């Protein structure tokens, strides 16, 4: 049987048609076609890889290669609420009480693993703050000067006070202050009243500074009162000066004392 089968096989392929062209030429043409396809495939893959890397690199613009945060106003903002562990970085420039964290929330970078970025939908704190009115207050400074038994006492007042309404002269910062009382340590007190002024109706404020030399009225008003005080005998004396200024809730007295030694 096998011989017959072999014979039949040989009869079956006895008259093969001639090849359509030189076999090696056709094979090499196919080889070239395959190589071109492979090259094109490699080039396509390389181009796709370059595009992918470019897109990925363009999407990693942060220092730590973190994806950028798009400034899309309508996009939801992810805020991770956690126990406040950091102090808010915002610090006001004024000396008022620092604001506490209003909500007790903070953006945690450790919780999300993402790089902390401020909420770009919220404008950053502006360096230009709303002007804050200075606090009302008055500071006094006494500067005694002793020559022999003669004391020249200069007082300086500076601060911010409300301007009372009424008969206010315009001769300096002391004119907006109220009544004053001062003593040289011996003899009667000297001073003046505020006159017809109303502190309750005050609205505006004034910040200023003025220095003046206290007059020794010596218990009597004269046309030319001396601008110094003469002690009768040597010793140590306490001088004091009290003046009132118009504060938020009315007149506020401020007293300053000093010690002088007369030889």
């Amino acid at each position, binding site marked *: *049987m*096998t011989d*017959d*089968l*072999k014979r*039949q*096989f*040989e*009869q*079956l*392929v006895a008259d*093969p*048609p001639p*090849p*359509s062209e*030189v*076999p*090696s*030429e*056709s*094979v*090499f043409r*196919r*080889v*070239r076609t*395959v*190589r071109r396809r492979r090259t094109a495939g490699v080039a396509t893959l390389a181009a796709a890889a370059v595009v992918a890397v470019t897109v990925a690199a363009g999407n990693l613009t942060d220092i730590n290669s973190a994806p950028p945060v798009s400034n899309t106003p309508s996009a939801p903002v992810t805020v991770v609420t956690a126990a406040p562990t950091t102090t808010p970085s915002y610090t006001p420039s004024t000396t008022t009480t620092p604001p506490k964290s209003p909500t007790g929330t903070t953006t945690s970078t450790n919780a999300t693993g993402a790089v902390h970025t401020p909420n770009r939908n919220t404008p950053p704190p502006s360096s230009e703050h709303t002007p804050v009115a200075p606090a009302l207050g008055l500071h006094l400074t006494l500067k005694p000067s002793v020559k022999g038994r003669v004391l020249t006492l200069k007082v300086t007042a500076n601060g911010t006070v409300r301007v009372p309404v009424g008969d206010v002269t315009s001769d300096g910062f002391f004119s907006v202050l109220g009544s004053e009382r001062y003593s040289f340590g011996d003899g009667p007190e000297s001073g003046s009243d505020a006159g017809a002024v109303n502190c309750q109706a005050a609205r505006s404020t004034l910040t200023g500074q003025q220095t003046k030399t206290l007059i020794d009225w010596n218990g009597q008003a004269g046309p030319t009162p001396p601008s110094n005080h003469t002690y009768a005998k040597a010793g140590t004396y306490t001088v004091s000066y009290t003046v009132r200024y118009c504060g938020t809730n009315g007149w506020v007295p401020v007293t300053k004392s000093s010690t002088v030694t007369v030889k």
Partner: protein
Amino acid sequence: MEKLGVGMDPGRDHEFAEFVDGRFTALQRFGYLLTGEWHQAEDLVQTALTKVWFHRKSLRSSNALESYTRTVMVNTSTQWWRRKWKGETPTEILPETATTSEYGTVDDRDLLLRALATLPRRTRATLVLRYFEDLPEAEIAQIMGCSVGTVKSHVSRGLAKLREHHLVTALSAPAQKEG
């Protein structure tokens, strides 16, 4: 022939071209027995040789080259058969309906082709390699990528299948094939 070379080694290209031109007809016959169609056989040979060209550097001799080419042809024809690619068959003459031929040889060829077409691809390839190429079972096993026992099994079942057909039943009883 040098102009045909496409590789970096003109010597190897020349050697490969000589192999193709010298063995193309034999490979085409082998392909015809695998496919049953001359044009399809030519396509099968060219496809296989193209695949072989990319692996030619790993082949040490011309015998290995031809053996590897037959392996690629068997595997490629099996792949084509698995893909059920039967939509377009190249042919120069329109197929005719089956008629009784006065020429017995032609009838025998047609019957043998029909019988081969009923065999599984690997069984068909095994029979062709065994009884047309006269290859020993060990070499067939190497080409087919299987064991010698598998080759024997393919041969046995293939012959049994052929005996079921009219042409083969006219053949004598199966003889013991040595080798």
